[in-house]
Every structure is written in structure tokens, then in C-alpha cells.
């Protein structure tokens, strides 16, 4: 804290440093023991089994179930991200353009489900989407359909419920970015004779792109590792990477294979963060929660 004072403060400064390190150490120890060590263990286990081996990675990259699951996971994550962007952008735009109080109200409605357990929401979607569920009964009551639609226990149900869970992660960074776009710019555009849609596409949309990138990154990355929703709503057919990891551990005792899958998943996530961090500050992506 005292920086430029010479000799007598040097000891003080060293004590200060020691104190600060001591204060941070309990938390750091917990993180090191419970996430750094376990993930390191996984990485080690993926290449070491009675000697160094790349067998697990060979399987992940060559065997059908593995790469098909990775492909499916990326497809679903991409679909979820695009849908979340399409649904989230208008809501964020509306919240941003409304008077402050109403904007906050819209935002709190967006964040409301955030605070409901993921399990609870999985249950709700089962109740809504199943064959005898609310939506099917309603549609039959209206005579729109004669046979119940298969809305859940498939990829469709997984995507519907996943978008629902991840949408707030899209709307919040979008809103935060839009808030920083000065209103004068839009008015300047209008006063120069540009139509509202032209000002939107030429001025507002480009300026909101950092928010789009932050939101898409968060949604995509979270979706890559999603477990509960696909497990409960996917009906066993939508095997995402996380389920591959869990099955290899729980059902087949294939710890090496599970570790290799986990490492590939983690590296994908880190690679995405790395690429994104070249365009926008990571705080922007992570700090939203």
C-alpha cells in the first residue's frame, strides 16, 4: 500500500505481502485440492495406465460412439446458442429501449427461472411436454392433433429445456452491452434521415456485437457440458458428451476412457475461451453471472 517509502517500510511491505498471501490461502487451498488436483488427476489418468498410453485418445477419436457423441453435442450446443440468440436479442433490446423501471421488470422476469433449480425445471418440462402432458392435452382439447406428439424423451425436448435454462446467460450480457450504446448515436442516425431499421442495422447491431459474442460464448460453453437436462429429457437417445463421461464411470468402470473424454471436452472449452478472449475481455463473458 505504501509504495515509494524506502528502507523502514521494506520489512513492513514484506509482512504485508505475507499477510495477504495468508488471507488468500484457505480459499486457494480448497480450489487447488478440489478442482485443480482432480482435473490434473483426470488428465494423468487419461494417458497413464500401467505405463504411458494414448489408447484412450485413440478410442475417443476413432470409435463411432465417441465422435458421434461429440458431433451431436456440438450440433445441439450450436442449435441452442442460435435459438437463444434469436429469442434473447429481442428481449434484451426491448428491456434496453423501455423506460428504466419497465426494463428492470423485463429483466427480472428473465432472471426469475435462473433461481429455480435445474432439476425443478426439468420436472416442469416433463410435466408440460410428455404424452399426457399439459401441452398435448391442450392441443387435443383444441382438436389440433388426434395423437399425442412426441415432444420429450428426444432431442427436441432436450433443446427446448436447455434453451430455457441458458437463455438468461444470453440476455444479460446482451443487455449490459446495449446499455452502453449511447442513445445519441441512434438519434444522430435518425436526424441524418436514416430509417429506424437502417439505424438499427448500421449502428445499433454492430455496436451490440460484443454482447452477442459474450452471450453466445457463455451459452455454447455451458451447453457443451450440460448433463442433467439431456439425461432426464433426452430419453437415453440423445447421448451428449457429459453423459458419455458419466456412463463410462458409473456403468462400465472405464475410468481411462471417461478421463480422455473429459480432457477433450475441457480442452474444447478452454480453446473457445482462448479464441474469444482475443476479441473481448473474458471478464465480460464470466462476470455476468
Amino acid at each position, binding site marked *: *500500500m505504501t509504495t515509494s517509502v524506502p528502507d523502514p517500510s521494506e520489512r513492513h511491505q514484506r509482512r504485508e*505481502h505475507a*499477510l495477504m*498471501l495468508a*488471507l*488468500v490461502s*484457505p*480459499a486457494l487451498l*480448497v*480450489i487447488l485440492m*478440489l*478442482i*485443480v*488436483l*482432480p*482435473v490434473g*488427476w483426470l488428465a494423468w489418468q487419461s494417458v497413464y495406465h500401467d505405463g504411458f498410453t494414448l489408447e484412450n485418445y485413440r478410442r475417443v477419436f476413432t470409435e463411432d460412439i465417441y465422435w458421434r457423441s461429440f458431433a451431436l453435442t456440438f450440433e445441439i450446443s450450436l442449435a441452442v446458442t442460435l435459438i437463444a440468440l434469436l429469442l434473447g436479442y429481442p*428481449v434484451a433490446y*426491448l428491456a434496453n*429501449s423501455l423506460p428504466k423501471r419497465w426494463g428492470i421488470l*423485463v429483466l427480472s*422476469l428473465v432472471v*426469475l427461472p435462473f*433461481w*429455480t*433449480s*435445474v*432439476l*425443478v*425445471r426439468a*420436472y*416442469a418440462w*416433463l*410435466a*408440460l411436454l*410428455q404424452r*399426457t402432458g*399439459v401441452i398435448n*392435452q*391442450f392441443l387435443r382439447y383444441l382438436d389440433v392433433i388426434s395423437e399425442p406428439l412426441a415432444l420429450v424423451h428426444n432431442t427436441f425436448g432436450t433443446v427446448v429445456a436447455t434453451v430455457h435454462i441458458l437463455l438468461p446467460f444470453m440476455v444479460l450480457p446482451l443487455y449490459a452491452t446495449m446499455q452502453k450504446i449511447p442513445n445519441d448515436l441512434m*438519434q444522430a442516425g*435518425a436526424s441524418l434521415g436514416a430509417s429506424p*431499421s437502417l439505424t438499427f442495422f448500421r449502428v445499433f447491431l454492430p455496436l451490440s456485437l460484443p454482447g452477442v459474442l459474450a452471450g453466445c460464448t457463455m451459452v455454447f*460453453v455451458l451447453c457443451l*457440458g450440460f*448433463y*442433467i437436462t439431456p439425461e432426464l429429457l433426452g430419453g437415453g437417445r440423445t447421448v451428449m458428451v*457429459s453423459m458419455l463421461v*458419466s456412463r463410462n*464411470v458409473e456403468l462400465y468402470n472405464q*475410468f481411462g476412457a471417461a*478421463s480422455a473424454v*473429459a480432457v477433450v*471436452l*475441457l480442452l474444447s*472449452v*478452454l480453446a473457445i475461451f482462448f479464441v474469444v478472449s482475443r476479441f473481448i475481455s473474458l471478464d465480460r463473458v*464470466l*462476470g455476468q*453471472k
Partner: protein
Amino acid sequence: MMRASPARIVLYVVSALVLVYLILPVLIIAPISFSSARFLTFPPPSFSLRWYQLYFANPAWMQATRVTLTVALLTVGIATPFGVAAAYAISQSKLRIMRLIHMTLLLPLVVPIIITAVGIFFVYAKVGLVATMPGLVLANVMLGLPYVVISVLAGLQSFDPAQEMVARSLGMNRLRSFFAVTLPQIKSSVVAGGIFAFISAMDETIVALFISGGQYQPLTKRMFTALRDEIDPTIAAISTLMTAGSFLLVLLATSRQGKKT
């Protein structure tokens, strides 16, 4: 400026539909939980509390509830002081390594939770912490720490460290000046961080699926297993209680954060 152009109307309609999509599943659970029907029928045939009775009368559900509450409370009790100390050090220290430490403390938000869960399971299996209470609490402390750190760091940002220096120059020792001067001013963000850690521990499912077992299974693990097997409206009753509880907590947390500014 905001006349009701066609584009504007479309914007309102689309946003309204999205909001319905967001809210509907949260609202649908309560009526199911108060319905007498075994299976979902809409509208619910008659009002009943039977699912709540089943929940409170079932020893397995009650034991799981006790585990969850104990874990969540212990998590807050440990993660909050650890997180506050860490956030304080990160904000006050000029050491360059603090930036790295700061990033490390946020790792639980970056690493996909399924990976963390499996990794912890392997480590716990080696040291005999699987299906134990300490194991469950430790894992939740780790998961809750980032919330405390983020919240308290945000609170410390608007705090002027010079105030603490003044208290110390007037003869208070460091610890006392922290409790007398600093803590009261960041209290709301400490409480908010603690509440987020509590909610995170209440909701945590995936790590518990791997590392909990026997009599130390939290509510979420039992709910997950029950959901995988069949749809039992008891879960609607539990869900309604959980949702009501976490809304209350969030209201508490945000109203406190609001007071700060």
C-alpha cells in the same frame, strides 16, 4: 420516438412470447403439487395436500432434506469467511501473483461441472471421502467460493481503503479495523455472496450424483433418481417448496444489494 411501428409491435409480441416461455415452467409446478391426481390432468381435478403429506411422512425424503440443509449451511459457514478473506487480499494486495490467484479462484465457473464431478470422484475414491459428509461439504465450498469472491470483490470496489488506514493510524489493529470499518460497509455484498453460495449448495446435483451415497444423499440426488424412474408428484411438492425458498433468499440478497447503492 417510440411510436407503435409494425416493427415495434412485432418486438413486443416476440418478447412477450419469450417471457411466457421462460415463466410458464416455473409457474406450472405449483398447481401440479396441489392437485389430487396421480397423473397430470389439466385443469387439476381437485385441491389436495397429499403430495406434501407424502413428502413430510417419508423418512428417506426427510433424511435427504436434513443432509441438504446441513451441507448448505456448513458450506456458507466455510465458503463465506474463506471467500471474504481472499477477496480482501486480492483487492488490497499489489502482488502480481494475485491476478493469477484471482483467476484460479474462478475456475469452478469455467470447468464444466461434469468434469469437476468425475475428477473429485476419482480423488475422493483414493482418500475415502466418497459418501461422506465432509466430502460433500468440501465440494460445495469449492463450488460456492467464486460467488462469494465475485460478490465481495464488487463490494470492495466502491470501498476506499484509506478509511481502514485511518482507523489503523488511530491505533486499531488490522483485524479490528477490518471488522469495525471495512466489514460494515461491504456487509451487503458479503451477505449476498453467502446467499448465492447457499443456493448453489442447495441446488448442486451433478457432483452429488457421483460422490454422495448411503445416508448422506442430498435432496437433489434423490430427486434426480426419482425423476429418471417415474414422474411422481411428490417431486412437484418438493420443487414448489424449493422454488419458494430460493425466491425468498434471492429477494433477500437483491434487496440487500440494492441498499448498498
